[in-house]
């Protein structure tokens, strides 16, 4: 014990520096983790404050989960979350790497820089703004898309109440917003590849395509693996704005836009069901944790150096 205290005293300066951040983590990350026991309780607000509310609420054990999984909602939100995220991860990876390779091959580097700056813009804008952008195209009476449709003699489409179009709209806008960011990461990695590989390949008569196939892509592989593991670990988490803000929270679209995050939010704010939405959130976090551990384990089996831990 005294050895521990000696250690504390020896490190006191750095411990004091790390203290404010630690308090933040305890209150805003670890206290909510402790709060997940509410998933097993029937939450009642107590007058004696937060801890009293948590402790005095009655244990209902798996009632909240039972309630969640007996409705059809659990299936729909899980399906939507996984399918959308899977499509976003795969398409995002392919398109971002392709764009990074194209950008790196452009002869005029100044133009490449300008294109990159443009592609990066959507990443810096909030979903509220993007939702307004989408509205200029999809508005029923004023939108550009309906103007084009009527110009060719078609019927106006009420975009915000037709679920069948939304899987494509969501994927399109999701990719559009994120691809610039990801290709910047891959482009930086391509820039870092040792030029002598390419010089040797040219001497051996390798075509441009072969250089990309056998040098650029293999060199990017570690980064692609790491980013994909992280993305798979987060496959149960969705970009809330993409599914809430972009479809303007339109009830008609819930069957194709409701994901776990929006379900939890609506459960909490619209229905005030703390127990059930905590249960849904815990389900999300637990599966996410298991997935990231599995993904990392698999990568460590295949290529040890590329695992994140």
């Amino acid at each position, binding site marked *: 014990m005294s050895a521990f205290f000696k250690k504390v005293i020896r490190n006191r300066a750095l411990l004091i520096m790390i203290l404010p951040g630690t308090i933040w983590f305890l209150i805003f990350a670890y206290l909510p983790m402790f709060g997940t026991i509410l998933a097993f309780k029937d939450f009642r607000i107590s007058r004696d404050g937060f801890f009293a509310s948590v402790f005095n609420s009655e244990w209902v054990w798996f009632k909240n989960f039972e309630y969640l999984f007996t409705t059809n909602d659990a299936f729909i939100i899980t399906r939507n979350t996984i399918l959308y995220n899977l499509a976003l991860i795969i398409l995002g990876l392919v398109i971002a790497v392709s764009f990074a390779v194209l950008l790196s091959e452009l002869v005029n580097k100044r133009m490449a820089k300008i294109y990159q700056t443009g592609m990066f813009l959507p990443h810096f804008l909030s979903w509220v703004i993007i939702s307004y952008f989408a509205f200029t195209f999809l508005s029923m009476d004023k939108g*550009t898309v309906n103007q084009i449709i009527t110009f060719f003699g078609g019927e106006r489409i009420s975009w915000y109440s037709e679920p069948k179009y939304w899987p494509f709209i969501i994927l399109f806008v999701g990719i559009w917003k994120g691809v610039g960011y990801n290709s910047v990461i891959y482009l930086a990695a391509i820039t870092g590849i040792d030029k002598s590989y390419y010089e040797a390949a040219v001497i051996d008569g390798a075509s441009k395509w072969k250089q990309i196939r056998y040098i650029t892509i293999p060199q990017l592989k570690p980064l692609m693996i790491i980013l994909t593991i992280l993305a798979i670990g987060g496959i149960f988490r969705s970009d809330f704005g993409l599914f809430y803000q972009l479809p303007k929270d339109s009830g008609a679209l819930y069957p194709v836009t409701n994901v776990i995050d929006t379900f939890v939010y609506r459960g909490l704010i619209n229905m005030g069901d703390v127990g059930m939405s905590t249960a849904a959130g815990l389900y999300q976090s637990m599966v996410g944790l298991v997935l990231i551990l599995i993904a990392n384990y698999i990568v460590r089996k295949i290529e040890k150096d590329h695992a994140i831990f």
Partner: protein
Amino acid sequence: MTQLSTQAAPQPGKVKKKRDYNAITPVWNVIFNIIIGLFSFSCVFPFLFVIIISLTDEQTLVQEGFSLFPSQFSIAAYDYIFRSGSELISSFGVTLLVTVLGTLLSLVLVTSYAYALSRRSFEFRGFFSFLAFFTMLFSGGMVPGYIVMTQFLHLQNTIWSLIFPLSMSAFFIIVMRTFFQTTVPDEIIESAKIDGAGEFLTFVKIVLPVSLPGIATIGLFSSLGYWNDWFNALLYYNNPQKTPPLQFMLMQIEKNMDFLTKNAQNIGSFDMAASLPTETVRMAMVVLATAPIVLAYPFFQRYFVQGLTVGSVKG
């Protein structure tokens, strides 16, 4: 890292350049330029389109819909905002205050935490690294966080409910720790110690000044996060008397314009309320909320690139 390529940018003065022996053929170069150029343009176009809509005459808009070439332009929307928009301007103020306070808090928390983690001599490194990075793998979720904020801290409807949730993240700590480890040599810290400087003095006087690019990166990430945040306001702002931050106000006027018409009646102008240019005012607000980012980010872009490559490659 921030350069696109190790090849030097073409000199403007040079008339004739020798073609890189390994460059793609001119035909492919044109094709690649078209693909990337079109996509890049599609990323900028909606913003330009919104600017045009905000400058369209309201009547023309009703008749012609959103158009790139409206038959009549008008600055009525901006005129309205600047003449009657006290509420809009205070919303700007809230966002600005949250962004400045939040970014400062964020910098203090992140740099001090990351610096301790970056020191090899710190004997509790393992524990505190785990404390930070475990939050990337597992989180309590939205609801317990909401309960903590509203029932434990009682901060709903205050700017602190917008500031605290975004002030730290494991990602910021990774970026900053990597920055300290790679750019501040141990020798500098050791020599400062030999000269008798304590840990705090070394950190403030020696380490922070040489880490300005890293601090700029975190500061920009953080301020962008605050400026663009609407989610925390959606959760914690439910009192209509409280001025909401800009992004959340944009959400509210998307649903209805009562907020603005109420405002017009306040200044006693019935005509103004009647002829309120609703759609163009909305779009003008979008332009005003986005303009600072669009104007500033090309200059700060390299810090972002630097930060996110450090965070993703070495994380």
